[in-house]
């Protein structure tokens, strides 16, 4: 397996001082995806920023996994609303006066 874009869960947990059960709990509720080979479990590199955010919420705000799931859902909604605002603003430009 090509592990170039994968980060070992062991290494990640040691670096961030967190327990591996936290990572597996995030996977169980579908917030992150993990992959495994014969020896290790890995995190996908492109999921790293999102995962680090969850670690901060967990470690700094003492938010548990269920709370993180809710926060993630609400943040997704915020982002979706922000996209909608941009789309509406672009639509509104149609009706702005042509100079």
């Amino acid at each position, binding site marked *: 397996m090509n592990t170039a874009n994968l980060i070992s869960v062991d290494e990640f947990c040691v670096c961030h001082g967190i327990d591996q059960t936290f990572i597996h709990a995030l996977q169980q509720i579908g917030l992150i995806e993990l992959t495994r080979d014969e020896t290790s479990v890995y995190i996908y590199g492109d999921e790293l*920023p999102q995962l680090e955010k969850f670690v901060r919420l967990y470690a700094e705000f003492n938010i548990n996994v269920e709370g993180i799931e809710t926060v993630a859902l609400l943040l997704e909604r915020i982002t979706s609303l922000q996209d909608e605002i941009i789309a509406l603003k672009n639509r509104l430009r149609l009706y702005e006066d042509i100079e």
Partner: protein
Amino acid sequence: MTFIDYYKILGLDKTATPKDIKDAYRKLAKQYHPDLNPNDKEAQRKFQQINEANEVLSDPEKRKKYDLYGKDWEHAEAFEQARQRQQQQGAGSQRSRYSGSASEGDFSDFFEAMFGAGAGRERRSQVRFRGEDYHAELQLQLIDAAQTHKQTLTVNGKNIRITIPAGIENGQVIKIAGHGGPGVNGGPNGDLYITFSIANHPTVKRLDNNLYTTVDLDLYTAVLGGEIIINVLNEKIKVKVKPETQNGTVVKLKGKGFPVYKQEGRFGDLFVTYAIRIPTNLTDRQKALFTELSKM
């Protein structure tokens, strides 16, 4: 460089106890934490201020220096030297600090002038951290967004050449992986996020991939029909005008709109609204002919 009132930032006064500072910091840091305020530059700016205020006020030594010399920060260095001569030792304290996201920025010039560059990063451990994400805004003209082109950006002193695909939207964000801040202790670099801001065009409006424009049509062509050439984003398009075209008529020119993002060869449509212009400064002969027409 302006004086920064760290007490005011945390909503405290000078009599605040370490517990007051910790509580105020914790409350505000949660409120403005970048992880909880996505794409909110103002929240990110406030979060940096709050972190900086906490960095100073939660450290007894820094707080003492700030209280004494805050407004006269230029003299802080002299104070520092005197303090070292007296070999005073500051008491340690338990401080907590939110790391924010990787987008956590630098401290202010005021902070660095007073406490030295890097003073706020003393608690970094040997843990590898992904570098800070950079956010930049790039302004484009509508005509530039209509064609794939390369552009060189200067981000934090580094030139980055990027390809901007035709059809990019106003407000769209693209990620340039690995062009953010350098990782800490061998961690990966952060990413660069570019938000595109596309200026309104004076005569052409865009919605998704469709373009909208209004063109003047002389009365005679409107009545009798004919052919006109319209210029849309520097492209000349020949349009057939049907006889007896009414003012405000909208015609759709399929495939003459804006390029579809990352779908080469696909375009939206162009919608042309006719604004019929009534002739002015008529000659006597023209007036007579219009009169004759009106009686028919």
